[in-house]
């Protein structure tokens, strides 16, 4: 055996490409975007519950990369990227071991997780206070 390619097993990759499931999802996205425009209501879709891994890869490539690429370090790394479709975000959460724990497609103006948690603001005051160099009395 010289490599993995020699193992004659065809995996799900062989079935990748545009599938009916992807088309159905894209059709669904149109409705979610419409709703976001009309009512401001956001939607999240758990991709792993709907699509196979090759399908997710295909969808990711299809939707492409938009203007914002954010990364988050909390309980492992996460990437939060706007796709080239405005209002459609691709969010991938990984744990500290870099294993994917959730892959979401969000139709929103901005994913909630990017907002600073209000709970953390109480910390901010003391942090900032600690940053002020004491130059009183000069």
């Amino acid at each position, binding site marked *: 055996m010289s490599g993995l390619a020699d193992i004659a097993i065809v995996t799900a990759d062989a079935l990748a490409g545009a599938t009916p499931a992807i088309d159905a999802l894209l059709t669904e996205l149109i409705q979610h975007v419409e709703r976001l425009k009309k009512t401001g209501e956001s939607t999240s879709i758990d991709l792993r519950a709907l699509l196979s891994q090759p399908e997710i890869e295909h969808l990711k490539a299809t939707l492409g990369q938009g203007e914002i690429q954010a990364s988050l370090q909390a*309980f492992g790394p996460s990437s939060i990227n706007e796709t080239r479709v405005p209002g459609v975000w691709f969010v991938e959460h990984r744990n*500290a071991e870099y294993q994917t724990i*959730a892959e979401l497609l969000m139709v929103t103006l901005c994913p909630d997780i990017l907002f600073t948690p209000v709970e953390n603001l109480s910390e901010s005051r003391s942090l900032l206070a600690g940053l002020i160099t004491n130059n009183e009395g000069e």
Partner: protein
Amino acid sequence: MAKNITLYEALASRGITRRGFMKFCAATASMMALPPGAAAAIAETLGKTLRPSVIWLSFQECTGCTESLTRADSPSVEQLIFDFISLDYHHTLQAAAGHAAEEAREHAMTMGGHLVLVDGSIPTLAGGLHSTIAGITNLQMLQETVENASAVVSIGTCAAFGGLPAAKPNPTQAKSVQELMDEGLIARKPLINVPGCPPIPSVIAGVLAHYLTFGVPELDKLGRPKVFFGDSIHDRCYRRPFYDQGKFAKTFDDEGARKGWCLFELGCKGPTTFNACATTKWNQGTSFPIEAGHGCIGCSEPSFWDAGSFYKALSQPTEPLDLAAGAVVAGAAIGVGASIANRAKKNAAKSQHETATLKDLEK
């Protein structure tokens, strides 16, 4: 870890931030097969819920179910769920032994409202003395632990359906938790069956997370949570198109096997097995048995050990036809007997035959 803290506080004490907690809730929703929108509700509930006391009882089992959980790499979502609960008793994992261990169980039990996790089936022959722990039978231990519990979760096929110990000829008269409840041998409590040999770790954790956040999940007829056991392996199998096209592997090394065709004829029990393997997968989402080229053995179904060889197609008999030879002999004997009787009848009729004369005809 103190008992009167919430999950959020427990995670915060491990240095996990609010965003990390939100992410954890998103992953938990995904693990529970809930829509992502549920993450907010999970966050709110887990932010308020106190750590529940959990007693894990192991009876006639192989520890594979515990292995399944503890082999998950840390810090997985599964393990955080387990960090959250207060696992007050688990033979295999706890440091304490002997009296100290039993005291921990008794203490947790007297408080009441605890969650009982069971792996392994319970022997009932001869009062259940085929399996004892700390001088009492498994049945007694289950009886007293379940008495004041809030709910019971059967982890693995043995606890859920009897599993291997209950396979024919079931020498210890092993029973599942469900059967004991149905027979009134233990108190009836809300029961969730999480079968599998072993169950998928994230399914165990997902069920616990669901219980902690939204209570007992919706169950199927066999007491299994529908979110994980609602679809058959076959219905979610990526090889399903080959079944529909009638393309089957005939041996494990033929052209069909190499092309990844359907394994039905090689004994795959996917069509009759309900579990989340095809979607959740194993080893942190790497693959599941059919992806590795082996059929499903049907481990999350009742009496799967008695369904014949793992390599026999579902259309094949589970056991040799023992009665056939006897039936052939009996059939032949009855046939010969009947023909002898028929011949005797014929001969009797013949012997009573009288010759008709012209006179008789003129009468």
